[in-house]
């Protein structure tokens, strides 16, 4: 055997010493998209992601089956119990049934969005790269938004295509030309709200668990508070205010806005039917939309204020 080193020892492949990178380094690229893509990949790796996506899609499947049965039997059943259009009500029903699953999905995938980075000091990695605070926040927001919104947007689109196929001969497209746009607008709504508010909570909390606990507490506390407030206002005779207060929970806001966008009639039992509040008049939409916008902006503002490249020392 020869004593001389083998050819591979002289080959660049065998060279494990430091070599300067001389490949391309883009100066113009969508920086936030790099972060959004990574957030999306990490979310999809989480253990509960796919079960929750399936859970959020299940109502759309159920509504699809109901529509199929309705087509075969000629009876709309509970979907039009309160009047209104069958398809719009069907989309609204699927949407409102999936709201809680979407919330759980947001909680699972979004709690660590910023809190996880804070706990692991990852902000120092992000902000030492050619990335601004805005790129970071937009990337985190977009990653979480796509994760959450797709859980209702994709099944809603599939349901629409199913309905289109089922009722095309009945002039469905001509009668409901904007339904696809309405369904898309409604489907992304929970994504916008949950992502923005959760990002704020995640920026405040030091760990993902605390962020999840804070957001869950906020979500669940708003429901009873809004109902109790509505009850008190209703008893005092302020019916308009009571109606408004009864919608001031996360799911209430999302349902109310969606109902208006879809022009649907809710099924019996919604909005405090058990508490005698179902007789309340329809509340004005504007304050609800403003509350939604306020929550979104507040979440984003908190996240923006909390993310810092430098810890300021007060001397």
């Amino acid at each position, binding site marked *: 055997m020869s004593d001389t080193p083998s050819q591979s020892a002289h080959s660049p492949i065998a060279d494990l010493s430091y070599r300067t990178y001389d*490949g391309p380094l883009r100066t113009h690229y969508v*920086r936030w998209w*790099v972060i959004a893509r990574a957030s999306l990949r990490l979310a999809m*790796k989480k253990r509960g992601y796919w079960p929750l996506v399936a859970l959020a899609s299940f109502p759309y499947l159920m509504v699809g089956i109901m529509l199929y049965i309705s087509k075969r039997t000629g009876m709309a059943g509970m979907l039009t119990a309160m009047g209104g259009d069958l398809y719009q009500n069907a989309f609204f029903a699927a949407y409102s049934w999936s709201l809680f699953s979407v919330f759980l999905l947001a909680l699972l995938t979004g709690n660590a969005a910023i809190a996880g980075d804070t706990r692991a000091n990852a902000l120092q990695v992000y902000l*030492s790269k050619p990335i*601004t605070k805005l790129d970071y926040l937009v990337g985190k927001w977009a990653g979480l938004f796509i994760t959450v919104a797709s859980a209702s947007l994709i099944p809603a689109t599939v349901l629409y295509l199913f309905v289109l196929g089922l009722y095309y001969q009945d002039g469905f497209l001509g009668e409901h030309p904007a339904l696809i746009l309405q369904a898309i607008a409604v489907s992304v709504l929970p994504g916008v709200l949950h992502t923005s508010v959760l990002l704020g909570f995640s920026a405040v909390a030091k760990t993902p668990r605390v962020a999840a606990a804070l957001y869950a507490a906020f979500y669940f506390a708003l429901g009873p508070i809004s109902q109790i407030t509505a009850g008190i206002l209703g008893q005092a005779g302020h019916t308009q205010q009571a109606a408004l207060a009864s919608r001031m929970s996360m799911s209430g806001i999302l349902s109310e806005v969606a109902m208006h966008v879809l022009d649907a009639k809710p099924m019996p039992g919604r909005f405090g039917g058990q508490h005698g509040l179902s007789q309340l008049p329809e509340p004005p939409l504007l304050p609800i939309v403003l509350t939604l916008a306020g929550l979104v902006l507040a979440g984003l503002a908190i996240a923006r204020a909390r993310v810092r490249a430098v810890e*300021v*020392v007060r*001397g």
Partner: protein
Amino acid sequence: MTVASLANLTVRYGPKTVIHDLTLEVPEGCVGLLGPNGAGKTTLLKTLLGFISPASGRGSVLGLDVATQGIAIRQRIGLMPEVDCYIPGMNAVSFVAYAGEMCGMPASQAMRRAHEVLEYCGLGEARYREVETYSAGMRQRIKLAQALVHGPSLLFLDEPTNGLDPEGRDEMLALIRDISHGKGVNVVVSSHLLPDVERTCDEVIVLKDGVMKAQGPISTLRETDGCQVDVELKEPSPIFFEAVERRGGKVLSAEGARCRLAFASSDGTLGAALFAVAKESGAQLRGFRLAQRTLEDVFMEAISE
């Protein structure tokens, strides 16, 4: 050629001035940034990264203005932060590739380079493990890997040997030494550990309370005033010291058979003079060499001014 320069730079956090009217030039090569706690080392690094806008003065890194070109600067430099940092849920190779993509590398190039850099940093075997499961030493290495992935021209290393055992420390210092010598990467090492700086750096900058106290090549800073010489005798000899003083020399310190002597000047006959003194006093001279201060002496002198 300088990699960074500051001119009358002042940095404030609210009412607190952290860096006062600092003017300095960071040369190419490996430079140590020394200073006690609160000296302004980390603030200086953050200013050079473009995180903090100076209250007054100007600064540039690789010819780019720190106040207005922070993003361009961060694309050409690498930072190894002092604290543990990683992206939760990612394995080492994904983390390093992600760091590369954030710097503008195409995804495929970033992944290829991540493998290469991890191998170089000694994490080749553990590249598919989640970073959260890494030991302290491995986390230091991955911080170096993510800073190196995009091939920066300048590396800022903040306390690179934090939390490392002696073996890990030796390996990390060897890596830093290797990167900063002959690989085209300039390195600024911020550290409290003077031996680490001494082993890796060619130059040092000493800061105290945001003011520069000393700067220059370590070899120059360690030089002593006048002509000082460390002498080793066979055994302690007061007669030898008396003979030194008779010839105009001065005994600066004596500990057992070792002593440090100072002569007014050296005209190239220092050796002959020492032999003459030894002969006169009957002391046996075991050895002598020109005295040098330690980096600790330089540092202590600089911060006590």
